[in-house]
């Protein structure tokens, strides 16, 4: 089991390195000179040369990559922003917790609402309850997050005064204000997750409920409730764990919409600003962080799989 987890972690580290290489080289393919962006077109050639020397931009690309990745690994130093020479690591340190304080509750709400909804639609399969809930879930899937966010702003905030218009307070600063301001952004992000998890739960549960051992359990006189919650659900949720793990990067990566509309100073907003400002170090660092979260989530899911699925646990132990 330990070797299984160790192998998964090693693969995750390798994947992160591959992504870092891709991101680094892709950013260098983009047009535009970072020195010109930083110093402006009025800069003298001497100033541009000095800037490029200072940042090692005249070195071969593989040397630049080595310096960049080794600084990250040894000092967690992502370099300085192009436009105003701010510390990118500091920016990430400030912004990542803000993104996670929206992303994690989004996932939690998605799971907490999605699984029960999936169970209800599976149990009430074919009834009006199932049809109504399925319609609702499809609308969650089909409605763009941006639209839902703006709806909240215009109706729930402006018309009804139920939620704040925008803004963010970190939970460690003022938990009450954080809950008030984060409630709608979290819900906006979670509608899609609820729909995805609910649909997966429903389809897996329906499949499991048609298995022979469930028929046997029913024949043995077990109650429907015991069958569902004691036997079927455990097996039906195994694939759903994968889904939950895969949604985490989508939440973090998709944070740009929520963070833009609600003015939340997170990683999503940072990426957007980095792209519009052509601040390639910011974009590089942000993409790397998101890929670490993605690959980390997948690795965690695979390890969780090994823990909860006895078949995998057995083969992992071999």
């Amino acid at each position, binding site marked *: 089991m330990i070797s299984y987890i160790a192998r998964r972690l090693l693969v995750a580290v390798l994947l992160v390195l591959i992504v870092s290489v891709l991101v680094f080289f892709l950013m260098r393919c983009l047009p*535009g000179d970072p020195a*010109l*962006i930083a110093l*402006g*077109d*009025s800069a003298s050639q001497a100033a541009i040369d000095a800037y490029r020397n200072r940042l090692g931009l005249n070195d071969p690309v593989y040397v630049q990559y080595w310096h960049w990745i080794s600084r990250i690994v040894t000092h967690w130093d992502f370099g300085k922003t192009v*436009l*105003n*020479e*701010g510390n990118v690591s500091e920016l990430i340190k400030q912004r990542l917790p803000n993104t996670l304080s929206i992303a994690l509750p989004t996932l939690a709400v998605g799971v907490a609402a999605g699984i029960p909804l999936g169970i209800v639609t599976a149990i009430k399969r074919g009834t009006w309850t199932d049809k109504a809930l399925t319609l609702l879930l499809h609308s969650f899937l089909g409605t763009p997050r941006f639209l839902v966010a*703006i709806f909240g*702003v*215009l109706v729930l*905030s*402006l018309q009804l005064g139920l939620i704040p*218009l*925008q*803004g963010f307070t970190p939970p460690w600063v003022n938990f009450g204000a954080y809950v008030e301001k984060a409630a709608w952004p979290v819900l906006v992000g979670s509608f899609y997750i609820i729909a995805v998890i609910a649909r997966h739960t429903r389809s897996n549960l329906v499949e499991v409920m048609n298995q022979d051992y469930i028929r046997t359990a029913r024949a043995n006189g077990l109650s429907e409730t015991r069958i569902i919650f004691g036997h079927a659900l455990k097996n039906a949720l195994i694939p759903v764990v994968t889904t939950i793990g895969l949604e985490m990067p989508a939440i973090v990566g998709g944070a740009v919409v929520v963070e*833009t*509309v*609600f*003015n939340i*100073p997170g990683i999503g*907003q*940072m990426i957007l*600003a980095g792209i*519009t*400002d*052509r601040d390639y170090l910011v974009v590089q660092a942000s993409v790397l962080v998101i890929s670490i979260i993605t690959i980390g989530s997948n690795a965690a899911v695979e390890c969780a799989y090994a823990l909860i699925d006895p078949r995998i646990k057995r083969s992992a132990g071999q």
Partner: protein
Amino acid sequence: MLGHGVSDRRGGVRQAATVRAGRLDERRGFLKCSSAAAAFALFGQAEASARSKARGVLKIGVSGELYYNMLCFKMTGQPLDYVYALPVYESLFRPNALGTVDPWLLADYEADPESLAYIFHVRKGVTFSDGTRLDAAVVKWNIDHYLKVGSKRVALLGAIKSVELIDDYSLKIHLSTWSSIIPTAFSRECGYMFSKAHYERYGDAYCQEHPVGTGPFVLKQWERNVSKLFVKNPTYWGGPVELDAVSYTIYNDAVVGQAALIAGEIDVFAGMELTGLRPLAQRGFVVKTKPIKDHASLLVFNSLNRQGDDPTGNLLVRQAISHAIDRKALVRAAYLGFASVSTQFGVGSHYTNNAIVGYDYNVAKAKALLARAGYPNGFRTQIAAASSIANRTALAIIQANLATIGIDARIQVLTGAAANQAATGWGSGLWYHTSSIYLDVAMQMASIFSKGLTGGVLGLTTMLRPDDVNAALKRSVSSISDQEAVAAVGEANRLLIDKYALYMPIAEYPFAYVTDKAVRDSGIGDVYYSIATLSKAYIQA
């Protein structure tokens, strides 16, 4: 309050005295009451007056962040540079309602064309927010520093040869050639004064996020891409400041920005998209789009054509494209009634040249010109612009118009620093440019269309700069008489449009401010977008 008469059967005198005393008491009581009432009325009025002129925080919404930072030498004259500078910086001159400039941090000035010099007399009593004094030495330091590093140093201050101190409050600006635009140039970011003591003590990097100007507020907090907070400068040289603070919040989404105004989350929105203006005006907000239509949009071509393969490098092609665009329809659709069709850069000012022929909307003529140029079936090109609702609409209309003469134009919409950089050289094809029209059109045009410019200048690497245009622009800024300057600007525009078709004027429109009715005396949007009177501003309770 009124005395009570005490009934006394034994002593009539006592009774009478008591009654008299009682009446006296009554009178005293009445007087006491009246004076108390009067005092209460007076106090109440004062209190009501104080309440009606409430202090507090003026909350301003903006659509974006500074490209660079708060150090004035780095500013490039983008509208948002000025909006963020309002609380902190003041300049040597400032625009007035007549479209000229008045001394502001200067008490007075003299212009001496014969000696090629200006003499500036610095206003006494001006201090920076760090307590240091503004005097001639500090003004000289600021000008010298700007001449070394400032973004527009060549375009606007290129004629300055040296700065000489005369006395503690006077200095002389020596020019290499006469330039009438110097006062106007110093009414914008070139003329912002920064504390020399602060800069020398803390250095350039620190000052980028810790500006010290002579303004009524001081930057206290800055969360990049989110918000800024400026607090009252208690030692402001211009007198007591009404407001406690000014805050800026960035609203990336225009709809959320409008909602923020309606919800009362902000009091002012600077640079509102035109689509939001009418609905907000209907809700009772003050929409400031007058008195000066201070922005222009122009279609600019890759006339320099360095690669040699761009059809827009051909004069006939440029003229054909100019005839193909229906500007009336474009202005109606993109600017929603808040703009007018432009015939030349700076229309509406007294520099207008009515002799310019221009290019009427004529598809047949456009096709004929294109065929003469060797492109009877059109060609492929691209058209780019900075992102805004108006620009995107304009690009779509231009694309459709060009398609009628066989030109397949790919649209490219850019944002932030990418847009800023593209304006300097967009590569190939067309660039739909939006430019502020600063007060002195001669200055503006000389800083855009002259030869030998550096910095963030329109079309630096893509636009032709013919010698005769350059000569006309030089005459416009060096002429001593207004008549000469007007004629020279008119000639420059005629050459740029009729002879070389280097740009096509499209529209002129305002930088829109929307304010809550309760905001008073802020000066925001009253005269020109680069100034306000935030020291006097207050919020009506």
